[in-house]
C-alpha cells in the first residue's frame, strides 16, 4: 500500500470526520457522566452541584425495596444467562461442527429474537403466559429472559468455535480419544473464553431489560429497571441517580471484563 501513500492518506483523513467522531462519542457519554456526577451531589438539586457526598448511595443501599429488586434482577440474570449459555453452546456445536440440513432455517430461528421489536416480544409473552395459565412472576420472567438471551450467548461462542482449528478435534480422535473426552479435554477448554463472553453478554442483556420485565413482573418479582421506572413517578430524585449510576458501573465492569477476555485470546 506504499504506492500512492499521499493519496490514500487523503481518503483516510477526511476533514471533519475526526470531529464528528469525537462529538458523537461525547454525545453518547455526556448524559451518563452527568448522571453519575450528580449522584454524588450533597444537595438535592439537579441544577447545582453543592458538594460531593455518598449519602444517596447510602440511602439506596438501605432501601429494602431497591435491594429486593436488585436481588431479583441479579438472580434472574444469572439463571437466564447460564441456561441460555448451555443451550447456545449445544447449538453452536451442532451448527459449526456437524452437518445440519436446512442450516439457514436453524440460523434464522436462532437469530429470531434479535429481529423482533422488544415491545412485540413483551406483550406476546404476556399474552402467552396468561393464556397458558402460567401467569406472571419470576418463573415467567426466567423463561422469557432465557429465550431472548440465547442469541446473545450464541454469537461469541460461535465466533470462538469457528476460529478453532477443526484439525485439533481430528487429531484428538487420531490419538484415540472418544467423542466425550474430545469434547471435555480439547473443545471445552479452548472454547472457554467464548463461553465466558457469551455468558457475560447474556447476563448484561437480561439485567438491562426493561420492557419485557415490566410486562411480566408481578408483585414480589420486580426487577431493578422496573423498580427504577416506578421511582420516576416521584420525579428524578437523587436516589434514582444513585441507583442508575450503580447500574452504569455494573455495565461498565461487564463490558471491560468481556473485552479483557477477548484481548487475552489474541
Amino acid at each position, binding site marked *: 500500500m506504499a504506492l500512492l501513500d499521499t493519496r490514500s492518506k487523503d481518503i483516510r483523513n477526511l476533514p471533519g470526520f475526526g470531529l464528528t467522531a469525537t462529538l458523537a462519542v461525547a454525545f453518547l457519554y455526556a448524559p451518563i457522566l452527568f448522571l453519575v456526577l450528580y449522584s454524588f451531589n450533597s444537595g438535592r438539586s439537579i441544577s447545582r452541584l453543592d458538594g460531593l457526598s455518598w449519602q444517596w448511595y447510602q440511602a439506596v443501599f438501605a432501601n429494602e425495596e431497591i435491594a429486593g429488586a436488585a436481588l431479583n434482577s441479579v438472580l434472574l440474570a444469572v439463571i437466564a444467562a447460564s441456561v441460555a449459555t448451555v443451550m447456545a453452546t449445544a447449538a453452536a456445536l451442532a451448527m459449526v461442527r456437524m452437518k445440519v440440513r436446512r442450516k439457514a432455517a436453524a440460523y434464522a430461528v436462532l437469530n429470531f429474537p434479535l429481529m423482533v421489536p422488544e415491545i412485540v416480544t413483551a406483550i406476546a409473552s404476556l399474552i402467552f403466559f396468561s393464556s397458558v395459565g402460567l401467569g406472571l412472576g419470576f418463573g415467567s420472567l426466567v423463561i422469557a429472559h432465557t429465550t431472548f438471551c440465547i442469541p446473545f450467548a450464541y454469537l461469541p461462542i460461535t465466533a470462538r468455535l469457528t476460529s478453532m*482449528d477443526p*484439525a485439533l478435534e481430528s487429531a484428538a480422535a487420531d*490419538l484415540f480419544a472418544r467423542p466425550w*473426552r474430545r469434547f471435555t479435554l480439547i473443545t471445552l*477448554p479452548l472454547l472457554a473464553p467464548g463461553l465466558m463472553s457469551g455468558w457475560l453478554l447474556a447476563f448484561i442483556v437480561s439485567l438491562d431489560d426493561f420492557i419485557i420485565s415490566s410486562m411480566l413482573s408481578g408483585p414480589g418479582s420486580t426487577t431493578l429497571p422496573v423498580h427504577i421506572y416506578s421511582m420516576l413517578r416521584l420525579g428524578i430524585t437523587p436516589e434514582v441517580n444513585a441507583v442508575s449510576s450503580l447500574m452504569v458501573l455494573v455495565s461498565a465492569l461487564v463490558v471491560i471484563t468481556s473485552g479483557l477476555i477477548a484481548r487475552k485470546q489474541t
Partner: protein
Amino acid sequence: MSDLQDHGDACRLTGLGRVYGKGASAHHALDNINLTIRANEFFTLLGPSGCGKTTLLRLIGGFDQPTVGEIAIFGRNVAGLPPEDRPVNTVFQNYALFPHLTVAENVGFALRMLGRPKAEIVATVARMVALVRLEGMEHRRPDQLSGGQKQRVALARALAPGPKILLLDEPLSALDAKLRQRMRSELKALQRETGITFVFVTHDQDEALAMSDRIAVMQDGRVQQLGKPEEIYEAPANRFVADFIGGANLIPARIGAGGAMAEGLGVVPATGAVGAEVTLAIRPERLAILAAGLQQPGDLGPLRVAERIYMGNELSFRLEGATVPLHVTLPRGGLRGAQDFAPGEAVCLRAEPGAIRVLAS
C-alpha cells in the same frame, strides 16, 4: 492395534472411490483406487493439489468414509471405524498441536487416552522426546515453539502410541528449504529404524524421489503410476507422469514406416500402429548438444540455440526448430564437462540410450 496379523500388507485398498455431490455435478475426488501398501515400507502419494492424495490419506485414517470400495488394515476391514478405533496415527499438515497443553502433554496424549499407567507414559514421552531431539522443551507450549520444533512434536506425538502405520500429510511443506532437507533424512532414518509403515503425502517430487521406497503418482483421483522412484523417473508411464516428475520435453510425433517421426527432429525407433499420434518424452539432462556439422544418423536436428540461461549449477538451453521448443541442461563446467553454446548457433542433439520414451498421446 491388537491385530498384529502378520500379513505382508499393511494396507490394501480395493476399488476405492470418494464422490461428492450427485448426478451431473458429482465430483470424483477418488476413482477406483486399487493399491497395496506393504509393511515396513516408505510409501508416498505424490501429485498436484486436488489430485486426491489427501482425500486418500484421510480415508485410511478414518476421518472420512469412502463412497465405494474397501480399506483393509493388516487384513482387517476398517469400514465405518472412526479414527480412534484404527491402529493408525497421523501427522497433520499444520501439526494440530493442542495449544493449551505442553509438549509433554501433547506427546503423552494418546497413551493417556489408552489408559496406560502413569509410569509408562512418562517413560515413553521421555523416549519420544529424545528420539526427535527436543529434550528440554517438555514444558513449553506450542506457541513457544518454532515451526521445525512443532513438526517434531507432532511426529513424537503420533509415534508415542507405537502405531504400525504412520500417515504424514505434507509434514514438511511449511518448513524452509534447509530445514526441509534435514528433516527428509531424519524422517527416512526414523522409518528405517522403527520399521513403521509410512504413508507420506506430498506435492514435492524431489521429496518423493529422495525418501520413498515406492511412489504412487496421482492425478484426477486416479493412480497414474505406481513404482519405485527409479521406475517413475526413468520410465514414466504416461504424459502426465513424465511432465510432473522432473522436467520433460514432450514432443508430438507420428508413427511412420521407420518409427516415430517428429517434425524438425527426425525419426526415432518406435513400434506401434502406423499413423498413430504419440508423444516423445526426453529429460533435459539426458541430451547432449553437438555442433550441427557433427550430426550423425540417429541424432535429432538440426536446431538453433534460441536462449542460453545461466542457472548457477547448470546451464539451460532453449532450442528452436521442432514443433515445440526443446530444453536441454548441461553441467556448468569443471570436471563434468565444459560445453557451452551461444544463441544463434546451429546444433543437433544426441540422446542417451533409452532416454527417449514413446508415450501414448
